[in-house]
């Protein structure tokens, strides 16, 4: 660089800094940090959740915002990687100075962020993660609206009589989510005298599950429980069909995106069942049918795929819950928002949101309970149980 150009560049930088420092509206929005996987193994889901969050933020801002100020989402990509999740959390808290976070989709991603919450005393609303550990290890800055695997297992227990499961195998993603699900469902099955056979793992970025499926094919179980996100589920279904694995498959976790499975796995998705936490195919089943219909309409209007609704409602509910907490707190301050979360009560698309205390005494996390549905894919269509 010549002396003259470096001088010009220096001047430009100085002007830019001056302009940023002088910007008054930087003080006027209330920033909310959002940490989602926008690339990597869970990219589809994280993108859906972020888009749902944006709809909630726009809706709140159109109605006048919170405390008379607009909310501004600062969305960061955790790249489906726990190390990245922790570093973007730090960036949001330290550099963007957000008083509250929402994230981080996957259990391992959320668990990686949690020490940062303790360090900086900032609360986070957990919208998707299922691992029980998140609310039981004693982190008083965590407020979760998605059901932990144990609650999902208990909800599923009500349906097992009519499914007549004799023996079940597991194929789960090798992280806190998958392993936690295998653990909690095994416990529930044993309590209901259902035998548990193989528990097979797959790395979250693995693309070839033929070896695991070949092993499962040789087992005498009648049901296969699969836990992973939509990308890997697509591959599991295709590869199970290629191996001629004829068995009832039930997936858990609420991140299956059934319509995307139908589109990408084709006939291989037929006959599979999925535990879902929101049923956009029949908005009347939602705790707030009118709002669910409006949300679905807005989602379609923005040109997003219908498939994404089973994920995006969590981003929507999460941001609305955070806005309610900020309103109760009366100021965009981390400590005040954290206290306010305990008193928040609202009806989300996925059920009534109200935080109960769970975890070790004195260090409790917040946990809200949500609805559970078992949907089935038949002839390329999603079949939802009657209300």
């Amino acid at each position, binding site marked *: 660089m010549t002396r003259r150009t470096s001088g010009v560049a220096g001047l430009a930088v100085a002007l830019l800094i001056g302009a940023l420092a002088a910007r008054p509206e930087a003080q006027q929005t209330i920033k909310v940090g959002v940490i989602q996987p926008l690339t990597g193994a869970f*990219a589809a889901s994280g993108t859906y959740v972020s888009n749902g969050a944006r709809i909630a933020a726009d809706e709140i801002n159109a109605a006048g915002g919170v405390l008379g100020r607009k909310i501004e989402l600062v969305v960061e990509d955790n790249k489906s990687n726990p190390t990245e999740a922790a570093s973007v959390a730090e960036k949001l808290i330290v550099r963007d100075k957000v008083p509250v976070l929402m994230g981080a989709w996957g259990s391992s991603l959320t668990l990686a962020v949690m020490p940062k919450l303790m360090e900086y005393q900032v609360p986070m609303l957990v919208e998707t993660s299922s691992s029980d550990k998140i609310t039981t290890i004693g982190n008083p800055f965590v407020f979760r609206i998605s059901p932990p695997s144990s609650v999902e297992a208990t909800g599923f227990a009500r349906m097992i009589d009519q499914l007549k499961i004799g023996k079940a195998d597991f194929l789960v993603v090798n992280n806190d989510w998958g392993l936690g699900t295998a653990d909690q469902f095994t416990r529930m099955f044993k309590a209901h005298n259902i035998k548990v056979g193989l528990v097979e793992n797959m790395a979250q970025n*693995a*693309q070839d599950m033929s*070896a695991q499926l*070949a092993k499962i094919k*040789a087992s005498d179980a009648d049901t296969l429980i699969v836990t992973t996100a939509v990308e890997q589920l*697509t591959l599991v279904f295709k590869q199970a*069909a*290629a191996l001629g694995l004829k068995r009832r498959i039930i997936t858990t976790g609420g991140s299956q995106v059934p319509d995307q499975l139908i589109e990408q796995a084709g006939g291989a998705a037929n006959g599979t069942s999925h535990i879902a936490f929101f049923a956009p195919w029949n908005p009347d089943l939602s705790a707030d049918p009118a709002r669910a219909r409006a949300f679905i309409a807005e989602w379609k209007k923005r040109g997003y795929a219908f498939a994404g609704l089973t994920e995006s409602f969590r981003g929507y509910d999460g941001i609305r819950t955070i806005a309610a907490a900020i309103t109760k707190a009366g100021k965009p301050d981390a400590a005040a928002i954290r206290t306010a979360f305990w008193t928040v009560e609202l009806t989300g698309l996925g059920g009534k949101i109200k935080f109960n205390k769970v975890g070790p005494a004195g260090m409790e996390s917040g946990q809200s309970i949500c609805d559970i549905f078992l949907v089935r894919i038949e002839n390329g269509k999603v079949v939802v149980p009657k209300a």
Partner: protein
Amino acid sequence: MDQLLQHLVNAVVLGGTYALLGIGLTLIFGIMRVVNFTHGELYAFGAYAVYWFVATSGVNFFLAIPLAIAAGLLLGAAVEYLLLRPMRGADIDTTMLVMIGAWIVMQNSEMIVWGGVAKSITTPFPESPLVVGPVSVSWLRLFALGFALLLIAGTYVLINRTKLGKAMRATFQDSDTAALMGVNIRAIHTATFAIGSGLAAAAGALLGPVFLVEPTMGDLASLKAFAIVILGGLGNVTGATIGGFALALVEEMGAGYVSSGYRDAMGFAIIIVVLLIKPTGLFARAERVG
């Protein structure tokens, strides 16, 4: 027994594409001494090219694959011409940094163009598999294996039976002497890098429709390609072919009988063992030093 047969078939079907990846890298690594970090991105590029031809341009699936391979060849030639040719004579660290930069740029370009969400490629193959006794395998994977074997045979003939192949081998043995004998080293380097990249793109084009296509798919492929090259010995096409099948077999058996969670680690554990016992790789030929 049935399960063992199925595992063997799975390994052979996967091994074909692993071998393609390995051969492509062993040529580049062995002949040019370039630690090619873009190899995985060429693999991803091959898969995206098929996706683009089939989903966006409506090209026939069977035509899309050779087109994607040709695109990979061209991209490889461009990378060599623009980035590596000016770097000739530079030390290995400098070249490595340039290649790491190219890898990051290529991966992020894929993300900008196609987004972070995985794409699926529709194929004309039936969903119901071919069933022979206790073993079943999808038609698409059989096609991928057949195509991969054809390409492997083609590369073998190219290296061992053609004048270009002879020039490549001469350059690998001793590039100064080859130059003195009238071999155009610069052209050989471009051709080698293009062929190696084309093979990586071929592997991606064949596996993309089997799996899903996403921007970070090249990372693991890159690692595996290096593992195969190390297993088979530097610059050795036969070694890379056997290395590819061996890695697939180890992964498949490891996942089937030891622990499925450590499937990808199994392959790398074997590499460590091989390096401890025979540091030049399983099939390394004596190399002229000096």
